[in-house]
């Protein structure tokens, strides 16, 4: 049970890590626009088709 003395700080540290990542992402503007990026996912097909037409299949 004494492991708890170790586990709790570790758990909190992991949590803090994610909070820091979240703050970094927010400051970088990752959450400024939540609608458009979902739509851009659709363009992947268009990009691939274009690449195929050019005859040079590029990895996206």
């Amino acid at each position, binding site marked *: 049970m004494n492991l708890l003395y170790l586990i709790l700080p570790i758990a909190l540290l992991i949590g803090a890590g994610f909070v820091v990542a979240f703050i970094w992402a927010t400051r970088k503007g990752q959450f400024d626009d939540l*609608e*458009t990026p979902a739509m851009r996912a659709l363009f992947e097909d268009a990009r691939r088709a274009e690449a195929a037409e050019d005859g040079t299949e590029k990895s996206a």
Partner: protein
Amino acid sequence: MSRSPLESTPAAAQQPARPAATDCAHCKLPVPAALIRPEDEAQYCCPGCRTVAEAIQASGLSWYYQLVDQGEEAQPARTTGRDYAECDDPSFAEAHVRTTARGDLETVFYVEGVHCAACVWLVEKLPQVVPGVREARLDFGRRLVTVRWQEGVVNLSQIARALDRLGYPPHPVRLGSEQLLRREEERRQLIHIGVAGAIAGNVMLIAFALYGGWFHGMEEGFRAMFRWTSLGLALLAVIWPGRVFFRGAWGALRTRTAHMDLPIAIGLGAGLLGGAWNTVQGVGEVYFDSVTTLVFLLLVGRTLQERQQRKAFDAVAMLSALTPRTARRLEGATVREVPQAALRVGDRVEVRAGESVPADGRIVEGSADFDLALLTGESVPERRGVGELVHAGTVDRSDRVVVEIVQTGADTRVGQLMQLVEDHARRRAPLVRLADRLSGWFVAIVLVLAGINAWWWAMSDPGMALEHTVALLIVACPCALALATPLAVAAAIGQAATRGILVKGGEVLEQLAQPGLLLLDKTGTLTEGRMELQSWQGSDEARAAAVALESRSSHVLARAFVAGSAEGPMLSAEDVHETVGGGLSGRVAGRAVLVGSPSFLAEHGVRLDEVGTEAAQGLEQVLAAGRTPVGVALDGSWAGWAGFGDPLRADARASLDALRARGWQIGVLSGDHPRVVAALADPLGLDPAVCRGGMSPEDKLQYVEAAAREQRVVMVGDGVNDAAALAAARVGIAVHGGAEASLAAADAYLTEPGLAGLTRLFAGSRRTLGVIRRNLLLSLGYNTVGVSLAMAGLLHPVAAAILMPLSSLTVVSSSYRARPFPDA
């Protein structure tokens, strides 16, 4: 691109086996029969779609059609065909263009016509369409596209034209520090919510362990560790994301106003200090799970409301961005489109029919009918000729004129009126919200109860006094109470926006929920804002002759005359001569015909003033009905009167009746002639005493100010002339087609013409206030139960832990289940 635009396009491939394809190849709407060209492979429903489809194919972007979601609501494309020359003007660059770190230029456009994911793809393909553009990023939600391009390689006007041709007419957006600050603020709020949420979650987990210990026992060492850890986390939550509540409470204390932050701060403070004390002592309860959850939920509620309000603000701001701010300046023999801000006194500008005058000036060439309604409320356009003054904001309704600018910017009549609006917006007292009013009482009651509680327990069981008092303060913390209003308001504003009603704040909804004095502008609000032939007295022969003559004039009344007398064969007129501001003379079927104002007829020797004659009586009738008279004379003697008026909106009477039934007093404030306004009273069922005409913008302002001292005044208007009054009223509402100034001054905006939106707004406000009241009642109910239990000393910490989130959840679901603005 290697592909040629002639290759078969996916659009055509999608509908191959339909020779008589009658759906538009671009927007999939049915093509009108008249526009079908049998020889073409692709059919288009309108020139806009054709232009756009051709531009798309020429740029090798036909993939667009495979991306277009067929389920989306179809929308025909619109292009303006403008040349956007103003974008290359140095003064434009100063206000709208910035240089990026890499030395490229960047600007932001608001684009019309964006409606689906394919639009995002197409807009972001801009670098492929216009060489020199490095990147285009579209923010779909806000319809804003950020364009980055290389200086010198391409002009901004070329970029703007390309967007226009693709069916997304761009409008410049001012890049101020304000926007940057707002973006920072939004990010900061999000970080606060994230931190508060993470802390609340972790503290909750630790609390579960502690509660488990409550029932099954726990080693003292673990217990101390859990308590000290959650104390640290709670401290962090309160002094980082939670400090906003203490700042608000401090502000409320300093200004001696009631604010919801005050009871929240007391609850948070009591919870934190009480818990800290007990942690140090190692006995009693800790309340950190309640405290941290409270901070998190309150921040979420607050941010949701702010985002919805900001959206409404943005939508209104974008509407005003849609009004073009350019003018066509004459430079020698050429005409150049320049931003209005670049105009200087002495410049000559061209104003065409349908455009508004860019700055105050004197006409130096031509003459035209000017619609002054936005400035004066006068519904009949006035003729202005060479040498006469025209104000910025008035609309040219008939012919091209050249105007020499005599005053610009803030010195113009519109500029002065805007100054009035700003003065009023600044002086306006903030509206006190129901929840804030309530919170004043709430704090007082809770503190009194806490005092009684402490005294009582000190008498009976001194050891438990602190414990029970802190428990009371925490359970009384108005978590649900504070969520009650923001959530209900956020849901209501969001719904209202989808129904074409933009509301700038929650206070507005609260204010509109109870009846008061409703003042309406006439032109454009109650009436349709256009001229119509409403009465004719005289022979058919005279009417036919008048129509023959009027069909040769572009005057607004002449057009209304022709439109209102469509039947019968058209006679032809000869020797037509038009007197500016008077009327027409000519010959029809061999007879001399005069059509014009009474004074014009009198000048030409037609006798109208003999008492008792048909002519004199007829004129009186037309005037008494509030109509504008136009007389017709055949061979020098009177032959008929036509009466023109601005028709009432079809829904005006029904809407006003509905509002009256709700207890609203209704009045009309108009700049139009008092007789015209008085004539409205009867068909609308209004008291003639409250229908005031002939009011200047300053008169309106004074009237509203005087009335606002006695009661709740709601003003509805659309013009620049209403703007100051809108700002002075408790709530100002601008209606469809309103001038930019009125948009800025108003608290709410109706995007639909007519008054139906107004009744819907009032009904929605009433329902929203109902939801707010229900929420407040629910949360107060929870608080009452909690406080009673705490005072009785029965409040088990587990009970408190359940009661707190439960009350919040009830309020959340109650807010989002309500539909204050149902579908029409």
